[in-house]
């Protein structure tokens, strides 16, 4: 049962393209009002998940809901898109239109179009209104795409790699615009990225996907609090162990060192002591640590 408080929910979402399983069980729960970073390596399934959510691709199996409506229902999905702003990873728009025509084309589709924001972003982004889209730089095209998404008066903003291909200064501009916008509006933002720093900078929730599966999801603060890394150093080679404590996410063995990532420190404490290491070192983890540990193949 989908809660009203969830802007996005997927349950065991699978998607196959020919012989390739692009999604192999994606479970997402994005609370309404959150800024959720959707992290994953290139080819992890981020774009495919977004396409399924927006009805651009059909799930092979599983369930996807957007603002409480089934994503797979063509008519319902078209209706939902009235309340969703979207920026694709390529930011490709209609080459043959000018920026002004592009805005004029998009505006009538959205009854809640924010003319005030349109005016604000036209000036803030310094958009060349009479230039054709095909003549714009990638950065300016991103800004046009962002304006078209932000002004829709949407309840949910879905951004696929919003800063991909931008130089750091332009990426920062885009992120700042996004943060500024969200601060003043009641909306949910779901954005995919493989840039951990930018997720860390603006997200309050995170979902990590790897090889088509959700490997981790939750509020960022909660993850930072729960996740701990313990490093055990042994006199000789670290033993090959199967840890029985609940919450163990990943165990890496390298020479004399055994590194364990856990999302529940307490039950693990007694078990690591029983291994009789020379030293035990507990440390908090960063989002980068959580991400890398989550997507790293086990040694």
């Amino acid at each position: 049962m989908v809660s009203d408080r969830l802007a996005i929910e997927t349950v065991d979402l699978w998607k196959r393209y020919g012989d390739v399983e692009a999604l192999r069980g994606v479970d997402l729960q994005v609370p309404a009002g959150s800024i959720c970073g959707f992290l994953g390596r290139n080819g992890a399934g981020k774009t495919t998940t977004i396409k399924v959510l927006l009805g651009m691709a059909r799930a092979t199996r599983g369930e996807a809901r957007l603002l409480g409506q089934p994503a797979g229902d063509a008519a319902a999905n078209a209706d939902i898109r009235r309340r969703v702003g979207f920026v694709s990873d390529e930011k490709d728009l209609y080459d043959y239109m000018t920026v002004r025509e592009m805005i004029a084309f998009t505006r009538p589709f959205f009854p809640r179009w924010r003319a005030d924001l349109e005016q604000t972003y036209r000036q803030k982004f310094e958009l060349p209104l009479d230039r054709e889209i095909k003549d714009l730089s990638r950065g300016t095209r991103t800004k046009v795409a962002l304006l078209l998404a932000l002004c829709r008066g949407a309840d949910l903003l879905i951004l696929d790699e919003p800063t991909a291909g931008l130089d750091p200064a332009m990426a920062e501009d885009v992120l700042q615009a996004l943060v500024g916008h969200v601060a003043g509006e009641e909306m949910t933002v779901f954005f995919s990225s493989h840039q951990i720093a930018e997720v860390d900078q603006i997200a309050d929730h995170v979902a990590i996907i790897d090889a088509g599966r959700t490997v981790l999801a939750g509020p960022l603060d909660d993850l930072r609090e729960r996740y701990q890394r313990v490093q055990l150093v042994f006199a000789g080679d670290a033993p090959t162990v199967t840890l029985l404590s609940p919450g163990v996410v990943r165990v890496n063995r390298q020479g004399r060192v055994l590194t364990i990532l856990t999302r529940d420190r307490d039950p693990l404490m007694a078990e690591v002591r029983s291994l009789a290491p020379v030293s035990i070192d507990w440390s908090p983890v960063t989002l980068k640590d959580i991400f890398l540990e989550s997507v790293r193949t086990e040694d």
Partner: protein
Amino acid sequence: MLWQKAWLETRWRFISALVILTLMAGGNVYDYLATQRLLPMLNSTITPPAQGPGLAGVIAEAIEIQKDFRGFIWFQAFKQNLTQMGVLFAVLLGCGGLLSEAKKGSALFTLSLPITRKQLLGVRTATGLAQCFAIAMIPPLIIPVLAPAIGQQFSVIDSLAHGLCLFFVGALFFSLASFLSTMFGDIWRPLLVAFFIACGAAILQVVVPELGLFRVMSGESYFRTGTLPWMGFVTTAVLASALLYSAAETLERRDF
């Protein structure tokens, strides 16, 4: 706004088609005088018996038909130029759409708009059919306008009737291209497949004249007997509808 998008995407193809077909139809009017000067020479080189079946018979009939202005226009414009080029332009107008947009990268923006794929295809189809109608009806109408300049007359009703014949079969090829464009993202494969299908239809017409698609398109029955090819209209309309329905279903199932 979808209408504007469909128009902007196809306007140059449409305008090119309209200009080229109109120039061809107008050119055929002025060709009449030159051809009339050549026909007596041609008559003297074709020796009887040049009747009945066979190539000589076909040539003799072609010469006979083109002796008067109405026959010349039908043979040159409606049976050949406007039919052949009309098929080409109808196919070109039918090419494109979401899959082609996907190649250019803008399909995801289009698909993020609150509209269904059927609405998108519907608007594009309606725009394309309106354009097909214009390129089928306007060029023939230039003929009665220009004919008095060379001392001839051509009925507006005849132009409209032939225009209708061009439209129905043109719409079929447009629908074929629309359907193929839901399977191929480029313009070349729909064009190539449509070309082969047109060649197949031309061969079929030689073998089974009753199934002559291009006889419907040239309005041969109207030229010879004054009767519009109603059965041909119905058949092409049914086939076009089936192709458009298939296009909608294919597009609905496609992943982007």
